[in-house]
């Protein structure tokens, strides 16, 4: 017999969004279960050894791993929260039940509300020989290096000059690995310029307007052929150049992990600014399925500060819908939304703002990408 567990709130994913959501709801006395497929809480934060950007009030300046440790401790001290690690949410069923494989056993969970905070997965990039051993995703390299202390190689070519590419380059340098170059297809660096400058001054060249044409090597990476791109991202023949390396690291973007949301019939839209398919939701992060909220990178690729604020808003709203009302809910929600708005206010947030304008409102619901499945 498969055990059925009942709870007020189920949080799927124990990254910063899921952790803050659980804490907010539990502090209002809601009974919460967090399921996390990894063996500890923290999500992306467990790999981030660098100091975080963002607002000081949401722990900017603190290293990602320390933010994760702090939140984990807070969660352990809350008797209202039950954490299941090595627990992967597998499916959402019509009877509003979520199935979970928990330490190799199957469980069913029925919750009054669900917050999906599953984060994101890495995008792959097409080029010749991209299946050669030595071609890694940035996430894999961070996991090897920062969690297990294993170096991926000695000489690395980084592909992608967004924040992830720049930060992982810096972490590789700190680990004593030589970063031969950062390759970026766009004509400008996408990540924060302070990150770019800090690797540049160690001597790492950043080639904007370039891409990888092919990985070179027989049984493993021996280098890469890079090539210049024109303004339409077309390769300019004759500009090929060989760079010697034993590792090619791809940091070309993330895509929200939304399969559970699709299963749960949440209306989805394709929003390139947010990284791919994302659910339509209102200001409280409620999707078109009344039982389900979304928060963090699963709602659109952004930053940890935004993920935590979204988690808090969703957690608060979910708790009050379940019936755990407290006087300060309105004021607190308003404050969180104000913070989020401030964060997304600048030029860096422009893309996010444009993306968000596509996930609200009835007109957008009609564009549901998966309605034909019904």
């Amino acid at each position, binding site marked *: 017999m498969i055990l059925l567990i009942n709870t007020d709130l189920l949080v799927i994913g124990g990254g910063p969004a899921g952790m803050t959501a659980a804490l907010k709801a539990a502090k209002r006395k809601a009974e919460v279960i967090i399921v996390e497929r990894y063996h500890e809480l923290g999500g992306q934060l467990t790999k981030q050894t660098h100091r975080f950007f963002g*607002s000081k009030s949401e722990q900017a300046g603190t290293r990602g791993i320390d933010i994760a440790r702090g939140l984990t401790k807070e969660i352990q001290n809350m008797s209202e929260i039950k954490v299941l690690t090595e627990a992967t949410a597998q499916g959402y069923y019509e009877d509003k039940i979520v199935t979970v494989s928990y330490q190799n056993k199957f469980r069913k969970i029925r919750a009054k509300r669900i917050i999906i905070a599953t984060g994101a997965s890495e995008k792959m990039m097409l080029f010749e020989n991209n299946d050669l051993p030595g071609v890694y995703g940035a996430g894999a390299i961070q996991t090897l290096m920062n969690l297990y202390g294993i170096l991926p190689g000695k000489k690395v070519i980084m592909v992608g000059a967004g924040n992830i590419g720049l930060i992982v380059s810096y972490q590789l*340098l700190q680990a004593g690995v030589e970063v031969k170059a950062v390759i970026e297809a766009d004509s400008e660096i996408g990540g924060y310029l302070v990150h770019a*400058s800090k690797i540049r001054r160690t001597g790492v060249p950043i080639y904007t307007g370039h891409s990888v044409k092919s990985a070179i090597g027989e049984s493993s990476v021996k280098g890469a052929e890079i090539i210049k791109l024109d303004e339409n991202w077309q390769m300019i023949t004759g500009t090929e150049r060989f760079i010697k390396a034993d590792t090619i690291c791809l940091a070309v973007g993330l895509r929200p992990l939304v399969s559970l949301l699709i299963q749960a019939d949440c209306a989805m839209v394709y929003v390139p600014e947010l990284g791919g398919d994302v659910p339509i939701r209102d200001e409280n992060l409620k999707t078109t399925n009344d039982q389900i909220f979304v928060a963090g990178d699963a709602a659109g690729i952004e930053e940890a500060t935004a993920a935590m604020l979204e988690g808090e808003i969703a957690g608060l709203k979910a708790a009050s819908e379940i019936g755990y009302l407290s006087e300060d809910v309105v004021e607190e929600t308003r404050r969180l939304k104000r913070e989020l708005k*401030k964060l997304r206010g600048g030029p860096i947030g422009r893309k996010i703002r444009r993306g968000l304008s596509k996930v609200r409102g009835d007109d957008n619901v009609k564009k549901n990408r998966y309605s034909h499945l019904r």
Partner: protein
Amino acid sequence: MLKRTGIPTSDDLQSVTPDKERLLEGPVAIIECFNEIPCDPCFYSCPFKAIKKFDDINDKPELDYSKCTGCGNCIASCPGLAIFVVDYPKNRLSLPYEFLPLPSVGDKVWGLNRAGKSICQVEVIKVKDPDKNDKTAVITIRLSKKYLMEVRHIKVGDLDE
């Protein structure tokens, strides 16, 4: 150009460098943070309120050179490692450093410019790595005046390499 290469231009730098008179007065922070990003820890780190309060978290930091004492408190607070303190009269530069091994006082090391080129030898005169800095050490070096505005990183290890 900064957005293509990661190397700030002289125009960029001019906008964050105090005039000669202020430089001659003694140590002062140079904040090389050139794009509007949602970030503000530097403001909270300054005991002298020399960094203006951010109206909007996306604002670029603004330093009041007359209030800045060059104490260096802000250096390790910046996640972008973008803050340096230049002491013109004493030929000293303080910079953030997050690599191991840390240099020792008295060491001669390479001074690197913003493009990562070794341009001169410098002498390490202070190494501060207190717990409150959370693993970002602040290294003070002595170097020739003409390189004070050029050197922004050091390379520890054999000088012959």
